[in-house]
């Protein structure tokens, strides 16, 4: 039957009702919440 996905989406930083959709894969810490306790440095570029 599956589960209520709201908390799962919340843990991913996905807000389905928000008008603004933000990408989450670029800051994805880990497939599991338990191993996502610190944020990871995403890609970035600094001009010379």
């Amino acid at each position, binding site marked *: *039957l*599956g*589960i*209520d*996905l709201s908390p*799962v*989406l919340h*843990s*991913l930083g*996905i807000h389905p009702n928000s008008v603004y*959709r933000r*990408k*989450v*894969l*670029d*800051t*994805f*810490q*880990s*497939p*599991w*919440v338990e*191993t996502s306790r610190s944020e*990871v440095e*995403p*890609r*970035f*570029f600094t*001009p010379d």
Partner: protein
Amino acid sequence: TNKERMYLVFTEWVKLLQRVPSDDVGVLVFIRQMVSKGVLDQSDKLIEFCKAAIELSVNSFKESDPTSEVFIAIDAFSTLIVKLLCLLDFSQSTRKEYFEIIFSTITLVFSEDQAKNGNNFNERPYFRLLSSLLCEWEYLRGHNFAKIKDARARKELKEFEEQFFEVFASFLHAYQPIAFPGFSFAWITLLSHRMFLPRLLRLPDKKGWPKLLLLFSDLLKFMGQYTKKSHVPDAISVVYKGTLRIFLAVGNDTPEFLVENHYVLLNYLPMVYMQLRNIILAAFPKKLSIPDPYDPNLEIEKTELCQDAPLIFYDPVQDLKNLKKPVDNYLRIPTTSLMRTISSGVYLNEYERENGIGYDKTAVDVKLINAIVLHVGIEAALEKEKTSANAIFNTESSYYTILTNLITEGTTEVKFYVVQAISNQLRYPNAHTLWFNYVLKNMFTSNEWGDNKAEIQEIIIRTLLERIITNKPHCWGVIVTFTDLLRLNDESLADLSFIKDIPEVELIVRNL
């Protein structure tokens, strides 16, 4: 010994990187000297050096105080790999070959480590090696390789990027959980790595998609193989949780990947994973504004979006095997003998295990049935564009009859899988959803089934219901189709005998 000398050189490299930034000229000079002084001037030496470097790095991890910096040597090795790919002269061999040699060496050391250590094998240093490799590559290629000043080198590296990810993905495919169970959780983490998954999703011309499909298939196959009705190992439950989150993230960032590859993904996804199946099928292209499927005034035939056929990345025609000609010929000119060939061609020679709800094995080639149904749908939508809607919204058309004949001439199992395959196309508003909605509605009310009518109706209701009673998301096309069936004047669903037989189901139907 030779090995000890390599240990020394590598140790110097590690120390150097801790003293200067990786862009420093000293780093460039060090690498130049590695080549000129004969450390890395031939591929055999490259293999020996990499072996020594990995062994040293992994041992360094194992022996380090866990609270200290345990990955220094490993990170240094990752940096070395990317620097070599960037700085060396590749007139004799290609970057791809060079990268493959390095990766092969890593693979052999990795294989030996896990074989010899069994349960004591620790995946973390190898995970870190690959993760840092991805990070170093990202640092190099930032802003389309803007850091590379030499124009020719920049051009070469841009061209190499696709191969970089292809090689990485190929080796990741070889490290899949079925082959290396001791690396499973690291593997899943790598597949969803922020420097890997979004890059492959967004490579130009969808170049990364075939490899991603392969990797997702590996994951789903693994899950499927060890999901038993009687018992799901705890570890597999955890795998599922992670897989769910990854699919939700992909659905958020790049729903097109799920939309265009639903056929492939569902071929490997065990059917008991109903919610995950719905997540894949409920995906829709980003800019689309979907009408409310619960709107009582909604008429699917008048929904504008249903004029457009969905994009399909992997053409199911490739999976039709020896039925391709009969199917295509039948669609052009339907004959009984062609139909007989098709109907008899969907069976397996041996049973296959399949953990379904109410069954545990299959005698039919489910993948083949999925391919036939989707192929017919694709052709029907094309036919509509070429000629007219009447050519396909017509119970006499070969597009419709090929499906009804499969059902008439097939066992209950075939009927079930054909209906499942049709329902898999009831997704967001598009031309396939529209046509298959028509097909299913007509199948439900048709009187050509004779004594089999109740059985077919039951299969249709079961198939749609099991997709609706799960937690969300639900597919737009399934909701609309089920609503259409609920609204039928001539046949009230709640009065059907197979519904009345099970009070819980009768209650659900009456409520709906």
